[in-house]
């Protein structure tokens, strides 16, 4: 199987994720789309690792996973705090700052 297909898949996932960030309203879903983008980047790294024949890309994937987990913790903490304050996780409701 042609290895470039993995890159196409990665680009596709990244696009789906970035469109989701722009279009979705629920902040948790927006956040999941961002995670999808990070995973797309991870897939690209692992694919390039295979193409280049060294392991550096897989090492990056490890670090990305850990960083993404930390991002999840910080992000969910912020989203949960906001939800407790105003009983809504919609990004459209967070518009006090635009007046």
């Amino acid at each position, binding site marked *: 199987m042609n290895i470039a297909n993995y890159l196409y898949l990665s680009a596709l996932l990244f696009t789906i994720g970035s469109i989701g960030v722009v279009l979705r309203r629920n902040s948790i879903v927006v956040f999941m789309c961002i995670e999808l983008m990070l995973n797309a980047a991870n897939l690209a790294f692992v694919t390039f690792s295979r193409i280049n024949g060294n392991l550096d890309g897989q*090492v990056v994937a*490890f670090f990305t*996973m*850990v960083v993404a*987990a*930390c991002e*999840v*913790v910080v992000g*969910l*903490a912020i989203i*949960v705090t906001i939800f*407790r304050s105003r009983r809504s996780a919609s990004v459209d409701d967070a518009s006090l700052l635009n007046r």
Partner: protein
Amino acid sequence: MNPYVPILAIGAIGFGFAVFSVAIAFITGPKRYNRAKADAYECGIEPSPSAAGGGRFPVKYFLTAMLFIVFDIEIVFLYPWAVTFDQLGLFGLVEMILFIATVFVAYTYVWRRGGLEWD
């Protein structure tokens, strides 16, 4: 000696231990049947289609889940070390102890500030 012999031996010991444990519990253990016994894994929360209290999980589930994720994922850094620890020698050991100590600091923070208390 064939390198697979020890692996087979470990497999046999593991299999024997499992059979022995189940059999000895079956023979010697008390037999009291009640509702908890019928649960999956004989413990935990009864599975139900929706969460307790009207479809939303309390925030403490998320808190525990987040703590689990962030400590769990640190394990990925132990795997590469486990593969090469004899080549890295003392250096690798010291670095790994430092790394785990740092993670442990975070853990003590969570523990002392009450992040692990359920109620």
